[in-house]
């Protein structure tokens, strides 16, 4: 366990020291600023309320969950695998007394923590912006719902990250991984529209699953089904990704 911890700390340190994480953070903040400006514009220009203090974080979530969050998750995942494969820096870790399983798990955990950190950052700043600039419409329930929505968004992001990791272990080149990932993302989005009755199976539709938690009647059955599908996908993708990673020669 100590070894895993070391590997995890290492991965986090690498993520933190790289500029990419910083860019992601800045972009996330930019989204909030732009969003807030847009709301103010809509309010003064069209006389619409746009979004209240609680709706603003939800608006931000609905936008980032389909755009910059998958994008940066993919970039970080690709960097963590393809990046280190191509620079041979994977060997630095691999020749240490730590099993590949632990390295793989540590990398995935680091990516998950990155996603979680991004979500919390977005939550915090969008809430702050929401309370400062927008009409107060908060109730305790709605604040709780918002926080919860952000937290549960981690799971579909993780599925996505594991998918990208699998791709990164399949293709040699990080750029091709990136493009394949983007094409798949768009493809799944389109399929989700065309075959909406099966849309709950596509990981791109699952990105919006936080909406299920907002429903007054709380559709428990549906939530459990979605959760199990994502859990199953996670296990599948994790195993497949690890299988390839374990077989890889450096």
């Amino acid at each position, binding site marked *: 366990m100590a070894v895993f911890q070391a590997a995890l700390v*290492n991965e986090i*340190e690498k993520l933190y020291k790289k500029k990419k994480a910083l860019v992601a953070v800045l972009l996330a903040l930019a989204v909030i600023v732009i969003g807030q400006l847009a709301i103010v514009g809509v309010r003064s220009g069209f006389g619409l309320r746009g979004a209240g203090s609680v709706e603003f974080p939800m608006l931000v979530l609905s936008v980032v969950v389909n755009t910059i969050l998958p994008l940066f998750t993919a970039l970080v995942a690709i960097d963590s695998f393809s990046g280190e494969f191509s620079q041979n820096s994977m060997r630095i870790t*691999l020749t240490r007394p730590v099993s590949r399983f632990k390295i793989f798990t540590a990398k995935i955990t680091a990516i998950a923590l990155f996603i979680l950190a991004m979500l919390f950052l977005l939550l915090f700043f969008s809430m702050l912006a929401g309370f400062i600039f927008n009409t107060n419409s908060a109730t305790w329930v709605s604040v709780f719902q918002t926080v919860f929505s952000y937290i549960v968004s981690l799971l579909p992001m993780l599925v996505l990250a594991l998918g990208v990791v699998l791709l990164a272990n399949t293709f040699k080149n990080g750029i091709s991984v990136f493009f394949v990932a983007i094409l798949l993302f768009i493809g799944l989005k389109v399929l989700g529209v065309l075959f909406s009755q099966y849309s709950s199976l596509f990981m791109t539709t699952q990105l919006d699953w936080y909406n299920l938690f907002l429903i007054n009647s709380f559709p428990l059955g549906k939530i459990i089904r979605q959760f199990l599908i994502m859990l199953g996908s996670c296990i599948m993708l994790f195993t497949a990704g690890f299988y390839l990673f374990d077989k890889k*020669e*450096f």
Partner: protein
Amino acid sequence: MEKIIEIKNLTKLYGNGRGIKDINLDIFQGDIFGFLGPNGAGKTTAMKIMTGLIRPECGDVTIFGHSVTEEYELAMEKVGCLIETAESYSYLSAFDNLKQLARYYPDVDHKRIDEVLELTGMIKYKHEKPKKFSLGMKQRLGLAAAVLSRPKVVILDEPLNGLDVEGMIAIRKLIQHLAEQEQTTFFISSHLIHDVELTCTRIGVIYDGKMLNVESTPNILKNYATLENYFVSEVERNGRVSSCAS
């Protein structure tokens, strides 16, 4: 003497027919083993398998009695290595690079990091990033990383690559020092025969993926004027044999 590394029936063939075939080798405690062979003979392949970067097709390597393929963590616990080229994270300083590795060993602290940087003459560049390092500097950093954990076994693939004369002497001294003071076992591959002659106590020759002969340096020097003569004759003998056979 205690067997530290045991290589048994190790085979790994690449698509182009190169690789290693059925290698058997034992390394004992205190050995400074020189692994000699022409380019493409399979030195690096063998060493990558020993350090778990590649899986063998068959056969196994055990270090301190632990199989590399099955009990990797235990096998590598007391091993330091430098394979092919010295790698480092270009966005982390020399110190941070070592700090990353130090986390895997509970008894390695910041003092020890400074110590190995001092040993390899890199202390001046402690807070610089390897982005701006020369090949030799990277190599020194790689060596520092290899000996960081006070390993009992050090596996070095071309450790003198890119080093200046001063560096070569320093590293040679370091190896001898560690072997004498801490009973560290070394497994070194090199194409610098002169250097191997000076440093290593036992020498194995690999040719065309096969182990030819393992002999202690004093024994070799009894029969041959220099190690180079021995090496050439070994390779030639084998080359003739293989060409006759084919």
